């Protein structure tokens, strides 16, 4: 298997998130931006096996899912910057990026809320027999919410073409998972609900690609599955959040050491799939791509005030 395409995708997400952090520091990004850096291997591993017509439902930490599924970086960044050329015309922002034309049915600001919606998308696929799958990404904390369990049960009961992807980065804001969960984690709970599940090293894109191939194929056969992906959150909960009250310097250094991109880099060189020079060239290309996204977003105007009242309801006969 060739890993260079995954390398490119992961690097795009990382460079994109670095740019978002920088733009937030300089006041160009309003609100919160929960960054996906450090978790790139998960979205990239899963989306590698998805078709354009498959569906993805995402979370507050969703930029990576959107880019991995095929959203245009410029339009994602414009949305994060509240501009009118953003996918949601500046109405959603970082926590609500959606690109329906790419099958991205929305990030979500409510923990675990996209899971029930994903069951409906998967049920639609099943009833239409269209061969599509739905993927619901969520963090480890979603496992503590009722809708997580309700959704697993529905998927199991109705044999839905649905893939649950738990991104276990150990944290919900400042609290580690051992202080929040008494059970054995998402994979074990999934089995109790009658789903197949696997645990995978979510910081190793090679392992992710392997597990995802199995998981997407099973979901496509209407056998719902869950992947529990171990990963690490870099830095704070969102880009502007300090971590000194709950994370030590040593811990933060260790997170960077687990970088899935650095890991793949070593492997690409060792296996002779790429040279240092080629990787540097890829980096230059991707930085240029992110520069272009920023240029696109910056030149996009802010929405006009009268747009605030548009799209509350469908424009329809008998409407209000």
């Amino acid at each position, binding site marked *: 298997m060739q890993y260079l395409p995954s390398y490119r995708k992961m690097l795009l997400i990382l460079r994109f998130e670095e740019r978002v952090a920088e733009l937030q520091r300089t006041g160009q990004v309003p609100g919160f931006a929960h960054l996906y850096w450090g978790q790139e291997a998960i979205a990239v591993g899963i989306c590698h096996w998805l078709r354009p017509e498959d569906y993805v439902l995402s979370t507050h930490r969703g930029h990576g899912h959107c880019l991995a599924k095929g959203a245009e970086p410029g339009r994602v960044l414009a949305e994060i910057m509240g501009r009118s050329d953003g*996918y949601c015309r500046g109405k959603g922002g970082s926590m609500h990026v959606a690109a329906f034309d790419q099958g991205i049915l929305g990030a979500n600001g409510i923990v675990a809320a996209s899971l*029930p919606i994903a069951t409906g*998308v998967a049920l639609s696929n099943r*009833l239409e027999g269209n061969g599509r799958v739905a993927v619901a990404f969520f963090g480890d904390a979603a496992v503590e919410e009722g809708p997580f369990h309700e959704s697993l049960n529905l998927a199991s*009961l109705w044999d839905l073409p649905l893939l649950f992807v738990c991104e276990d980065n150990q944290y919900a804001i400042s609290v580690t998972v051992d202080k929040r969960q008494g059970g054995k984690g998402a994979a074990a709970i999934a089995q109790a609900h009658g789903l197949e599940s696997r645990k995978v090293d979510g910081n190793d894109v090679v392992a992710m690609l392997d597990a995802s191939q199995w998981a997407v194929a099973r979901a496509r056969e209407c056998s719902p599955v869950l992947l529990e992906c171990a990963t690490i959150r870099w830095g704070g909960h969102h880009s502007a959040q300090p971590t000194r009250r709950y994370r030590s310097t040593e811990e933060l250094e260790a997170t960077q050491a687990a970088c899935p991109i650095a890991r793949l880099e070593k492997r690409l060189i060792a296996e002779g799939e790429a040279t240092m020079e080629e990787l540097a060239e890829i980096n230059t290309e991707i930085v240029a791509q992110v520069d272009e996204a920023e240029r696109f977003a910056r030149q996009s105007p802010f929405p006009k005030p009268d747009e605030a009242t548009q*799209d509350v309801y469908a424009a329809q006969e008998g409407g209000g």
Partner: protein
Amino acid sequence: MPNISYAAALNLALAEAMREDPKVILLGEDIGPLGGIFTVTEGLLEEFGLDRVRETPLSEAGFMGCGIGLALCGWRPVVEIMFSDFLTMCMDQLCNQAAKLRYMSGGQASVPLTVRAPIGARNSAAAQHSQSPQAWFAHTPGLRVVLPATPANALGLLASAIECDDPVVVLEHKLLYQEEGPVPSGRHRVPLGKAEVKREGTDLTLISCSRMTQVALVAAEELTSQGVAAEVVDLRSLVPLDRETILESVARTRRAVVVDEGAIDYGITAEIAALISAELFGELLAPVGRVGALATPVPFSPPLEKTVIPQVEDVIAAVLKCVPDSPAR
């Protein structure tokens, strides 16, 4: 015009919608062989099968979200919540997801979801099976809210709700399910956002919805013996609200009493009273009257339940307060 019950009218709306549009699909608890605990889905499983009449686990958040996902993919799901009190279990899906997806996505998403749920006090069902929570949903931008008071409106409003491209909350009153009334034969639609003048009058306008419209009609009839000719406007829709019909009527009668079964504080009656006061202040002969449930949980014991829920006498008293010069006083 044949006479049928309110429950049968709702059943007819569902059956006709399902025959006309293969994308109409039902989700809910006990909606299969039992036909729903208020018989609204009777016979539908037999006609449309298990795929389209989906009995769900007891997962209100789960299957409300499932309805939203189906709606995003072009289906027209109708989700039944057994009692409106249980809508609290899926408040997030309804108010944070369904209501906002079109807006948050900048118009990419469409959520043609219909939610049906019974409201109202009936037969000492106590505080968790008796609420009238219409104000919660009317207060959530992105949802439409309708409340039929008659079989004809039950048929026409539910049919329009299913055809609407927005999430619509259809609140049905438990005490009305068995009430019979004429329904037009053939295709019948009641547009969302159009009130209906149920009775004409010159002295005062009673504005109400759902079962309180029936209560208002009884009160209006009794008031004739006191020399008061009350007009009755049935709102039918809370969102969108037919401001025009309300204001046109009150501009003529110059007095208004608003009646709703929800808890009175911060409720529907306050919104409509404020509208009338703002628009017609100089024309009014009396302050706008408000009748609603007492601001308590709905109690169990029959005399207590009766105390809390608005009765015909409460409406009459509120009217007479506004019409102090009526000949009978």
